[in-house]
């Protein structure tokens, strides 16, 4: 609840000079041991107490602050011989290649230097990348002869990871360093080095900073054994070799031995920085696991950047399984009492709410509307216990903060991963409920892409007043009924809501007044005036519609007849709403379903989100009570077709198979004519697929002709509630061709799909055509082919999620800095204009009508109606 005290305005990057490393160091580290026999850290060892403390009891020997407050202090190791920093090996190679081996000048002529100096200067002035120019310099400055001292240059090569070879001689790190030192300072810029923050010779290390213990804490196992961090292990290795190298050098050991040790030191320092550098075997732990050194700590998904800096762990959050609750509003979320007593909301105590706060504290931490903590003005946090609550209450006065339990009406953030779009995180109002699952209204399943087969969701509680206000006005569920993706509704009725509404409103659906009142009451709507007559379902549903709503559209059940009978439609698919009364047409997915609900869409756009939320809440409840009045069930009995139909399908499939045989024969006799641009084999495949596809469709049509609108499965399929006619015909008539890799199944056994067939058999059955229906059951061969197709689908989905996830990450990363400026332009954070007007018309798709400013035709109609009334 504090404002921002300090703001970081910029971060400068630079190299550290050996002097700087020594200056910031608190101690020189020399001994490779960490602790002595008594378990105390050794002075000048890697766990030197001056490097900082971790244990909360102790005080730091360097800064005097307590453990936890002390962020640690660096030490240093003086390397007996210089070593090359792996990360800069490539740069060093390029720099050496571009500079004279004798005089140290960059191999550019005076004219070129002046030219590049200006170019680079310009880029830096404009804060643009100089990478391209430096790359250019590297190629131009690869000369055989120095333009300054006319010295012949030898080819410098790099032997990964860190060996620099000139001609046939491998340069030692000391020699490399000398060469880098010889480069004149005002020429650094040509090789991409900023002389203000770096010198090329600093890329060769002579002194190694030792990170504080807080960076590499050791852990004590249950057995009392200490286990050191990977970095500490690596530093021990470095120290050990460094020590041996120094001793050998002092003793005047043969050159060969010194060089070997030097090489070893280079290896250890290399793997200390990057244990995945190409060309070096990774350093391993005793168990054989590769060590996680500096570069690995930063890199990748689990690295510091993506895991700890871009994503942070939070308090005041909860996660549990979700389950449906049709009785709460779409704006609400049911929170289990157990969670409500755990996560808290901070409330400032004032003289107006002090009594209420005292009541919360009186309830204690275990009784629901209670409190867990009290924060005093001096920022001390006091836990409320049942034993201490009286004393806490006594001390409570305005200015304190009470962390009270979550209560009905609090605004929380609700989220389900993967958070693919902004509707994956919406603000809900809390409703504290018994049991242990989060409850949500079924209408919000589509935006979260949630179901209840064990899905879990997260909840976050806002801790500041600003965040609450912002969430309430921008993130509430009702503000997200329209998707910014296409400007239509993404929240709406699903499944039973749709079949329910259809059953309620279809032609011939009549209810007694008593039933109607029951349903209306159940939907928590205002009771209409009694008429004493029976009601049609359309009249009941019309109670929900705004009184001045007019619209005409074709429902989902529309069969797309050649000639539309409009109001006389036999399927009741032509919906006409006149002044809030449904005249003709039944309600289905097109009315208020997620993704395509026209009435819902029009209510949000014309009457606002509050009205839309009310409409959704009541209409879904009404539909549910409607479906309960009438009763709705489905079973395989719904897919039963008479004997005669089965015979016809059998006949049809037999014919198709005969036709396939004919085609195959024609193919073998080479009578088949190839389609343009296709081989004979491909032509045959295409023709067979076509014949079998038609056969499946025809068999489906036969089955369909026995299904009427009284069939519950058909109602679900046609209204768009769940499933499709294809699913039904697959159950009733014929499953059809199974495909792998977009074609018929052709591999599996030598020259055939299964050993049950003849070599080279191409027939329908041998390539995965399933004659049976799901209801009849698949024979073993069909079952196997079906599993093949099914497996491909599963593999496909797994790959797709990974691919599209990465694509989205890249897209978001590339575009996230864009925003709309007050002048209407779209710019990134550098101020580069990407669009002069957003979307060429400055319209927000989320507020548009399917991408358009407004439905002009509707506007005209309304205008005319209004003017008529005016007259």
């Amino acid at each position, binding site marked *: 609840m504090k404002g921002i005290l300090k703001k970081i305005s910029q971060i400068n990057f630079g190299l550290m000079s050996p002097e700087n490393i020594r200056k910031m160091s608190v101690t020189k580290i020399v001994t490779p041991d960490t602790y002595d026999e008594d378990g105390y850290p050794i002075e000048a060892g890697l766990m030197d107490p001056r490097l900082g403390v971790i244990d909360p009891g102790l005080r730091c020997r360097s800064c005097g602050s307590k453990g936890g407050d002390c962020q640690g202090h660096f030490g240093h190791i003086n390397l007996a011989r210089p070593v090359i920093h792996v990360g800069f090996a490539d740069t060093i190679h390029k720099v050496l290649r571009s500079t004279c081996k004798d005089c140290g000048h960059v191999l550019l002529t005076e004219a070129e230097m002046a030219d590049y100096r200006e170019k680079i200067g310009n880029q830096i002035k404009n804060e643009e990348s100089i990478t391209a120019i430096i790359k250019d310099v590297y190629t131009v400055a690869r000369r055989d002869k120095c333009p300054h001292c006319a010295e012949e240059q030898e080819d410098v090569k790099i032997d990964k990871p860190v060996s620099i070879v000139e001609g046939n001689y491998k340069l030692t790190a000391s020699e490399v360093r000398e060469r880098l030192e010889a480069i004149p300072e005002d020429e650094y810029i040509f090789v991409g080095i900023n002389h*203000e923050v770096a010198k090329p010779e600093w890329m060769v290390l002579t002194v190694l900073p030792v990170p504080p213990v807080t960076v590499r804490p050791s852990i004590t196992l249950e057995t009392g054994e200490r286990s050191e961090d990977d970095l500490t292990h690596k530093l021990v290795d470095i120290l050990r070799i460094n020590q041996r190298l120094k001793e050998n050098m002092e003793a005047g050991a043969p050159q060969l031995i010194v060089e070997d040790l030097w090489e070893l030191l280079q290896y250890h320092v290399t793997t200390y920085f990057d244990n995945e550098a190409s060309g070096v075997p990774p350093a391993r732990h005793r168990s054989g696991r590769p060590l996680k050194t500096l570069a690995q700590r930063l890199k990748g998904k689990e690295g510091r950047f993506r895991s700890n800096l871009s994503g942070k762990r939070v308090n005041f959050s909860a996660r549990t399984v979700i389950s449906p609750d049709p009785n709460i509003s779409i704006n609400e979320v049911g929170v289990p009492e157990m969670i409500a007593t755990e996560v808290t909301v901070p409330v400032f105590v004032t003289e107006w709410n002090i009594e209420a706060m005292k009541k919360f504290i009186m309830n204690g931490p275990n009784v629901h509307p209670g409190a867990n903590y009290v924060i005093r003005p001096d920022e001390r946090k006091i836990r409320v216990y049942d034993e201490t609550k009286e004393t806490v209450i006594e001390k409570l006065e305005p200015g304190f903060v009470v962390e009270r339990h979550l209560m009905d009406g609090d605004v929380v953030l609700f989220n389900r991963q993967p958070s693919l779009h902004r509707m994956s995180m919406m603000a809900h109002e809390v409703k504290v409920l018994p049991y242990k699952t989060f409850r949500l209204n079924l209408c919000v399943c589509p935006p979260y892409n949630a179901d209840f087969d064990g899905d879990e969701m997260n909840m976050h509680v806002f801790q500041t007043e600003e965040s609450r206000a912002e969430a309430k006005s921008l993130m509430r569920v009702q503000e997200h009924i329209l998707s910014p993706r296409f400007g239509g509704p993404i929240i709406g009725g699903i499944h039973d809501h749709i079949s329910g509404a259809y059953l309620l409103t279809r032609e011939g659906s009549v209810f007694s007044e008593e039933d109607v009142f029951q349903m209306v009451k159940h939907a928590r709507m205002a009771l209409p005036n009694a008429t004493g007559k029976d009601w049609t379902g359309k009249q009941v549903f019309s109670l929900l519609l705004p009184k001045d709503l007019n619209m005409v559209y074709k429902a989902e059940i529309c069969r797309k007849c050649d000639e539309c009978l409009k109001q006389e439609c036999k399927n009741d698919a032509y919906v006409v709403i006149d002044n809030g009364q449904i005249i003709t047409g039944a309600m289905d997915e097109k009315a208020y379903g997620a993704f395509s609900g026209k009435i819902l869409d029009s209510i949000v756009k014309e009457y606002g989100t509050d009205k839309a939320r009310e409409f959704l809440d009541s209409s879904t409840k009404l539909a549910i009570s409607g479906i309960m009045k009438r009763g709705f069930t489905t079973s395989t009995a719904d897919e039963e077709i008479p004997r005669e139909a089965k015979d016809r399908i059998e006949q049809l499939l037999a014919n198709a198979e005969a036709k396939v045989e004919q085609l195959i024969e024609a193919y073998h006799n080479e009578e088949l004519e190839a389609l343009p641009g296709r081989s004979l084999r491909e032509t045959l495949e295409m023709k067979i697929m076509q014949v079998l596809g038609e056969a499946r469709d025809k068999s489906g049509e036969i089955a369909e002709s026995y299904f009427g609108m009284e069939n519950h499965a058909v109602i679900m399929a046609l209204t768009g509630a769940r499933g499709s006619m294809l699913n039904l015909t697959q159950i009733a008539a014929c499953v059809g061709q199974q495909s792998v890799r977009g074609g018929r199944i052709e591999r599996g056994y030598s020259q055939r799909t299964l050993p049950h067939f003849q070599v080279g058999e191409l027939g329908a059955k041998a390539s995965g055509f399933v004659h049976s229906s799901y209801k009849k059951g698949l024979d073993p061969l069909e079952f196997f082919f079906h599993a093949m197709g099914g497996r491909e689908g599963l593999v496909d989905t797994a790959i797709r999620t990974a691919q599209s996830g990465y694509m989205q990450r890249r897209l978001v990363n590339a575009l996230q800095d864009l925003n709309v400026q007050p002048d209407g332009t779209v710019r990134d954070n550098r101020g580069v204009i990407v669009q002069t007007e957003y979307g060429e018309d400055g319209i927000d798709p989320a507020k548009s009508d399917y991408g358009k400013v407004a439905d002009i035709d509707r506007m005209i109609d309304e205008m005319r109606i209004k003017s008529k009334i005016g007259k």
Partner: protein
Amino acid sequence: MDIEKVEKVVKKKRTKFPEKLIYEIADAAERHDLNDKELDELVKEIKKANQRAGVENGEAVGTVAAQSVGEPGTQMTMRTFHYAGVAELNVTLGLPRLIEIVDARKKISTPTMGIYFDEEYSADEEFVRKIANRIGKIILNDILKDFNVNYANMNLSIEIDEDKVNDKRLEYDEIIAKIEKAFKKVEIDKNLLSFEPTITDPKHAIRELRLLADKVRDLQISGVKNIGKVVIRKEGAEWAIHTEGSNLGAVLKMEGVDKTRTSTNDIHEVEKVLGVEAARNAIIHEAQSTMEEQGLTVDVRHIMLVADMMTADGKVKSIGRHGISGEKASVLARASFEETGKHLLRASIRGEVDHLTGIIENIIIGQPIPLGTGSVGVIMKEKK
């Protein structure tokens, strides 16, 4: 109703509408036969709607666009190939194609062209067929009646099928000229040709003969570079050509080709031939049709923003570490995306400065982000 009239009314209302909207209004006005007063009223209403639906300042349009393009990706099929319109041609579709577009690949997996013709030729089947054969790759093998490798005489005899030559609208003389140019040792007797291999080493004579046979068969006698198969189709009243492979530059130079409708799905080729602006439109068109083909609706504005970002500095850049994300100003933003070490090390020798103006940078250091409600401050009004 004419456009000018609508424009006048719009001007009178002291507002500015995009061109497209004005056309829509004019169109609607004509359909409903509006009188002047009604038009006046309509423009007023639309002005209100326009203001209501406008984007707000500070809106994170980039993130919304990225999410709107990325989210449907999970619903797309992986089915790489599909027959798009033309049964004879395979075209990459679905998620792989979308990834290809945002990657701005130099070599796309299935380049294809749709070639249309000027009005005077579009109904002329003969003309279109002729062009098709000039564009499509035809090899000698396609027009042969007979092909014999004679091991006894160590020669090759072929017979050209005149019917096929005529069917493909080729010129006999041109074919012969091409053959003569490619092979030195050839005897020509009308349709009968015989080739002899140049034998350098008698030990490998048979191999040489076989190699020659392949060479003869694969001799390209017609076609534009990079274009393989062509398919001629009747679309409505006109004839069009669809190709496998693409060469926009060469095709546009051909006579009779409609330069406004002929297109390719290779974005880099569009950029090379027609420039970035066209490449930007090509990205929008390709991405949108990929989405639509899958039955997914995504507002054009989102795709436009992606395309504009990709082409903002005059050349087509990919989305990812080699393109936009790799060229960001901020070190932290680049380091947190990919290639963390490389960016940090490079920043240190260059002495780069991160001004922390972007989104991730501010998240990393724990400050409010400069977007949406974070891009504005509140100042209390002083009491006078």
